[in-house]
């Protein structure tokens, strides 16, 4: 297939060239022929019918020339309008390109922000997980309060017991000292009694 294309292409080119040049040669040739026939018509002696037919022929050639001129003018106008159209489209595309660029930059900023937010959220989650593992603060506070109360009660009891102990100690101390004193007094009395009997026996012996 591709070999055929290679051979056909020069044909196409030649055909196009012939068409284009043919048209141009046709127009030019027509004008030249017109001029030549006009001068010939003016200078030569034709019979009236021949002259008239030649005149008609020249009119047709002129009409053809005008027609082709009109056609080229229209084509020219069309080309100008097409150019304007394309310029407009081009400007439009330029504008949309710049706005797309701006949007891309915006989106990039957004993505950076979103990434930061995501990172913060993740860090928050991670810390929250760790915190959740620890017991609730209220619970711990309550437990602490209860323990405090217990501690107070126990120290109260301890104080009471200690006071009682002191009191008993003192009471026993008083008791013991009284007993000792009584013992002492009794001994003294006994001693005094024995002294008395000794003295009285000594008096009787004299």
């Amino acid at each position, binding site marked *: 297939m591709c070999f055929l294309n290679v051979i056909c292409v020069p044909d196409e080119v030649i055909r196009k060239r012939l068409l284009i040049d043919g048209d141009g040669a046709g127009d030019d040739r027509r004008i030249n022929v017109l001029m030549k026939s006009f001068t010939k018509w003016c200078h030569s002696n034709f019979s009236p019918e021949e002259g008239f037919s030649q005149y008609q022929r020249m009119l047709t050639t002129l009409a053809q020339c005008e027609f082709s001129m009109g056609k080229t003018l229209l084509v020219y106008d069309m080309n100008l309008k097409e150019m304007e159209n394309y310029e407009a489209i081009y400007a439009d595309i330029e504008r949309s390109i710049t706005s797309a660029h701006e949007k891309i930059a915006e989106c990039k900023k957004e993505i950076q922000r979103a990434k*930061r937010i*995501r*990172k913060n959220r*993740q*860090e928050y989650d*991670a810390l929250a*997980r760790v915190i959740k593992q620890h017991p609730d603060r209220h619970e711990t506070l309550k437990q602490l309060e209860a323990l405090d109360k217990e501690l107070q009660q126990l120290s109260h009891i301890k104080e009471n017991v200690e006071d009682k102990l002191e009191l008993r100690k003192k009471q026993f101390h008083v008791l013991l000292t009284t007993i000792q004193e009584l013992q002492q007094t009794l001994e003294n009395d006994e001693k005094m009694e024995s002294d008395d009997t000794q003295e009285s026996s000594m008096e009787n012996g004299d």
Partner: protein
Amino acid sequence: MGPVELLHMSVFSQSFSPCGRFLAAGNNYGEIALFSLSAALSPDASEGSQKPILNFTAHDGPVFSLLSTDTHLLSAGNGEISAWSWAELIKKVSQLFSKCMTSLEIPEINAMIINPKDNSLIVGGGDNNIHIMDMETGIFKSVLKGHTDYIHCLCFKEREEEILSGGEDGAVRIWGHTEIPLSRFQTCSGMVGQECARPQFGKWISCLATDSDWMLCGGGPSLSLWHLRSMSPTSVFPLPGCQREAVFHQDLIMSVGEGPYVSHCLHGGTVKAQIPCTPSSLNTLALNLKNTEHRVMTVGGSSHQIDVFTNFSYRAFSLSF
């Protein structure tokens, strides 16, 4: 370079030039290759533009770490840090600018980062310590001791000027301005981090990345996202292999490691995508954010090819050594 050497080549480190038009990559033979991104990304790129424009031997041992400052390329391998001028490299002159033979005898330097505020270079390596060097004078200002095994990766928190380091001992340490670590946490012992631990791989941390309050760490344990203020792991990523490098990028987390793909993950813990690449396992990932025209991601690993991603969702082409 014969075919056998090409087969056994691994790319360990990458760095983009300050202008963003060139990529330097270091491999396990000690060579650094310079690729021109503008040539490789231009519309009339050919096979030749995917080859290095300059390839020179920088170190005796592998080049584990590459870092670019505004004017120089720093490369580090087994114990020495060399500086190359980018202007000279772009003109294809591989003349050494300066070399610091660290008298401290660091066996290997795995990670280097820069503190831009006081212009110091922070180096971590095989001697379990972090050394801070002043770039103006070249003397080592201080040493941060604390790790019990060698350091794999370093990371810098710009806002608070803190250094994060991760090592073979499985601990991530945060260092402030003093030499005592601000805090440390073991990622897989104790109650903290139990869900990340993967004992079948070990406890070593090979990648660290930070994004102000958040930190990524992975390696032996699964890649996990930690909230630094509360020191708690918030998400564990279900990636099968050990991750060697991870970065934060916009709302995604990108990580590379064992397995011929780049994983895109969300902060919530889901793996959004796994983009296949040519090397069978990847060691390094670099993002060129300095230059908007050549905004690419490049990954390198156990292959002589470096994959270039223009749209982060698929591999565009590969540069090869």
